[in-house]
């Protein structure tokens, strides 16, 4: 859909007219990200991160495909082939650092993108499907990142694979057979490494397909905006091109500068040194930590240390960790407030920032060794995480009196203009 005042695609050049009859691809682009797509006039920079996530995916696919030309997925040589990329392959160090730090950049922008959705209530009707597909993308990204991290076959790769596939053995009865089925053995080895490589190559293309659905679903109601008030008439919008192509282009330049700084000046800042030690199945590193983007979830996994309700601690941990993400699937139905933007929700605003603080605490606990005070802190923070979504959010959205909303996007923009 588009708004009735959207500009129509009218090719003038004979070639473009011919093309429009045979394969109307230019028409699709014009209506999706061109002058034919009206977008709220007041989007702030938080609306850049969707495009940046797309850019990050392209960077991962391009660098990944060239790395695969030099990498060998065999336990005997995998580690050496990565060192070969670093030392011998022309520009190999650049490509590998770009791919490794590209994953970090990808997660940074996606986390900001999710933050935007949470703060501005983008997950609410009529954009629930956009949100649900986003959570699917997030899960796929996590799976892809995990399997990619196994490929260099260093100590952290190996033990990460052991611990993560170990989650499945928590399932009663069928758990251990499932784990062996996933690994193709009793412990991570060649079979596991090979299939992880195969899937690590495949999943980004699956992600690309889900992104197409994500954007398709978005283009039905169109983007939300910082006020959360829906578009009412033509005044409230501007054409995507040139307004947001320019704004996204500017955002992309900033993104690339940050990426370049990380890549050229601190490429190992977020890397675990122990992953430069080849995998050794007989010795676990003293302190196993996942990549930074998994820390909060790792803290939730470790929060259960005693059995209760006849369910072993291990199974509780795994259930809690998966639920912490799956909760996002029901978020649109947990938050009943008709107001989207947190800006107009005086009570919820406090809890929103408390949740952000809680997630940071979880991240810190996930990074630290399993010792006090981190275990206890992680337990409290995990409990709060669930309480936020399952108790606080439904209650707050019922009892809160929101601030008056502006009558339209244009009114909000002009009021801000006057105040300034």
């Amino acid at each position, binding site marked *: 859909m588009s708004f009735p005042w959207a500009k129509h695609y009218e090719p003038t050049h004979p070639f473009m007219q011919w093309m429009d009859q045979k394969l109307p691809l230019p028409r699709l682009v014009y209506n999706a990200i061109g002058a034919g797509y009206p977008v709220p006039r007041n989007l702030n920079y938080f609306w850049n991160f969707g495009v940046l996530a797309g850019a990050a995916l392209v960077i991962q696919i391009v660098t990944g495909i060239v790395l695969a030309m030099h990498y060998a997925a065999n336990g005997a040589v995998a580690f050496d082939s990565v060192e070969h990329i670093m030392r011998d392959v022309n520009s190999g160090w650049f490509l590998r650092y770009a791919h490794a730090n590209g994953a970090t950049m990808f997660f940074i922008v996606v986390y900001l993108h999710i933050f935007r959705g949470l703060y501005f209530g983008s997950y609410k009707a009529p954009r629930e499907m956009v949100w649900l597909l986003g959570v699917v993308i997030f899960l796929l990204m996590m799976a892809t990142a995990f399997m990619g991290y196994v490929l260099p076959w260093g100590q952290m790769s190996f*033990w990460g694979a*052991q*611990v993560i*596939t*170990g*989650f499945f*053995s*928590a399932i009663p009865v069928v758990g251990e057979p499932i784990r*062996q*089925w*996933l*690994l*193709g*053995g*009793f*412990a991570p*080895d060649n*079979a596991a490494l090979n*299939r992880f490589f195969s899937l690590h190559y495949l999943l980004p293309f699956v992600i690309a397909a889900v992104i197409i659905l994500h954007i398709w679903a978005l283009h039905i109601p169109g983007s939300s905006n910082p006020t959360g008030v829906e578009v009412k008439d033509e005044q409230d919008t501007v054409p995507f091109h040139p307004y947001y192509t320019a704004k996204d282009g500017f955002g992309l330049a900033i993104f690339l500068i940050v990426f370049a700084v990380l890549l050229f000046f601190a490429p190992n800042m977020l890397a675990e040194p122990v992953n430069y030690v080849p995998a050794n*199945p*007989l*010795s*676990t590193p*003293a*302190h*196993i930590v996942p990549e930074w983007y998994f820390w909060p979830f790792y803290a939730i996994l*470790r929060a*259960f*240390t005693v*059995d209760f309700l006849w369910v*072993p*601690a*291990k*199974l509780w*941990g795994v259930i809690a960790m998966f639920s912490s993400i799956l909760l996002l699937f029901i978020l649109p139905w947990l938050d009943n407030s008709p107001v989207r933007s947190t800006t107009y929700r005086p009570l919820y605003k406090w809890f929103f920032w408390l949740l952000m603080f809680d997630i940071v605490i979880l991240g810190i606990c996930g990074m630290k*060794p*399993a*010792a006090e005070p981190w*275990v206890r802190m992680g337990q409290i923070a995990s409990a709060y995480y669930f309480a936020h979504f399952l108790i606080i959010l439904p209650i707050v959205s019922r009892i809160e009196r929101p601030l008056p909303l502006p009558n339209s996007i244009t009114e909000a923009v002009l009021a801000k203009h006057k105040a300034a």
Partner: protein
Amino acid sequence: MAVVETDPSANAGMEDGVRRRDFINIAAVSFAGVGVVAVALPLVNQMNPSADVLALASIEVDLSAIQPGQAIKTSWRKQPIFIRNLTPAEIEDAKKVDVGGLRDPESLEARTKPGKENWLITLGVCTHLGCVPLGAAAGELRGDFGGYFCPCHGSHYDTAARIRKGPAPKNLVVPEYAFTSDTVVQIG
């Protein structure tokens, strides 16, 4: 479509509102379904451990050099194995425990061979998420119960390698093994 629906011959032989076409539909879709399952089975099954991985090479270990209080680490089916020669004090510790109160109740006798209860042979794979616990090599931490300690998420095992504290649900697994002589054991 419309033409077919109104064609009287299409309704020939129609009883109870069931047409021949319905039968063909169900038969064709069912047959295709069987085909999908038949193809999916090998696609799923190829992920299971392959024959060479399953060919569990058994290993023989000579225990004569392991002094009481010492342990060694070796590898079987690509997994670490701990072999520990318990001291009399450690055996006594393990026996003192009230078995019924354990998370995974098993006595030391049930976890060792008769007359050889000083030889504690287990997988060195934490039953939580699979790290290799510490405590087999000299000088490593042995946890609050003097057996093994898994640093990954803090599981403590006692001198019979039974889980006593921390997130692991089970005792360290005792593999199948047999003594082939007084000092040689065959695992697997």
